[in-house]
């Protein structure tokens, strides 16, 4: 028993650092993915095929392939052809952002389409441009409805970052793996890792429920 406590005590600071990395990557990529999602969403809704098709291909490609392949592709595959070098951190950030971005594209689109056409018409009839009506009238309403979905995306991002262990990023899963590779306490360490994920994700979903109550129902 005392030995187990020691294992936990010793591993905890390192795991905490791993968790910190997990959260940093998740939060940063969520922010980037929101920008990607918004842009890709307007491309998808554009009347110009030249904008619509690339966005549709992007969304379907991401949704139709495993995230592990996407990560490997961006870290190993793309740089080898493009003759560039990406750090694991950068590649990981790009992969998660692109992945979540594709799902956000559809969340944005659904949210905007859920706002009645009358809102756009009312804005246009007052003399607002399409972009102004979107910005002042439609998007603010749509985003309120989308907030819970975006928080939910954050929980996906947190789980997805564990895949980044394959390219050697020192996030929570990777740190756990390297600790039990040395001390062979895989049960204890993996339990700790699982609990830390759970607590983090559970906290986020609690926040999500709160926001849902505040934004969707009101």
């Amino acid at each position: 028993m005392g030995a187990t406590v020691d294992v936990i005590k010793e591993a905890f600071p390192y795991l905490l650092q791993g968790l910190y990395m997990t959260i940093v990557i998740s939060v940063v990529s969520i922010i980037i993915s929101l920008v990607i999602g918004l842009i890709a969403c307007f491309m998808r809704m554009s009347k110009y095929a030249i904008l619509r098709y690339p966005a549709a291909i992007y969304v379907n490609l991401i949704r139709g392939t495993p995230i592990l392949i996407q990560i490997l592709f961006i870290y190993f595959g793309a740089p080898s052809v493009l003759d560039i070098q990406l750090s694991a951190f950068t590649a990981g950030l790009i992969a998660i952002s692109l992945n979540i971005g594709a799902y956000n594209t559809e969340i944005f689109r659904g949210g905007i389409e859920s706002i009645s056409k009358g809102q756009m018409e009312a804005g246009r009839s007052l003399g607002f441009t399409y972009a102004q009506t979107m910005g002042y009238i439609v998007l603010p309403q749509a985003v309120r409805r989308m907030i819970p979905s975006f928080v939910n995306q954050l929980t996906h991002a947190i789980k997805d970052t564990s895949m980044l262990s394959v390219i050697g990023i020192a996030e929570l899963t990777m740190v756990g793996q390297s600790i039990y590779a040395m001390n062979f306490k895989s049960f204890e360490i993996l339990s700790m890792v699982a609990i830390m994920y759970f607590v983090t994700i559970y906290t986020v979903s609690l926040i999500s429920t709160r926001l849902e109550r505040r934004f969707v129902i009101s």
Partner: protein
Amino acid sequence: MIEVKNLTKSYGEINVLKEISTTIAPQEVVCIIGSSGSGKSTFLRCLNLLEEPTGGEIIVEDKNITDKNTNINKLRQQMGMVFQQFNLFPQKTVMENITLAPVKLKKKTKKQAKVMALELLKKVGLSDKADAYPANLSGGQQQRVAIARALAMEPHVMLFDEPTSALDPEMVGEVLRVMKQLAKEGMTMVIVTHEMGFAREVADRVIYIDGGRIIEEGKPQDLFSNPSHERTKAFLSKIL
């Protein structure tokens, strides 16, 4: 004020408007009547280009608005529109609904816009509702706010698409009263309506549309009491 020449509109194979021509004079109040699906809304929405005409010309205050080079956003600032479903902005208060466009598009200060909004609210009888949200207003109140919102842009023409059709009967009167007042003040108005009593009393001219064509137009007393076309007679006998 508005001159419509051979206006046509089709959706693919379906011709919804067929060669409509008419002129709306300054300060004139024109009511458009006709059965469901006859093209009344489409006609009205062509006037401020919410629908893009397929053919013909629309000239508003000497500008050909069907010309590709006209700035439709500037044009729409001069043409207020009121919808059947009100279409107020639900996340904004009544005051914000009314002041948004003047502040953003006419570069009025917030203060100027507010002063004006309060005047308009007084005019539509809702002085006490400035801080309310649309969801907390009755349909009739919402529609009166929608009228105030359109008026805040100081339009030269007001377009109404069945402004009372979504209202409970007891609220129709309050909205029609506001519209009557507007007409009295000399606003140019084009109104799609099923309220024949209102048309008879307020309109300078009534246009009967059927199958995408103007079948008959004239002074309300003539058209209602003495329609010259069979189709107009049939329509009027159904609804009067």
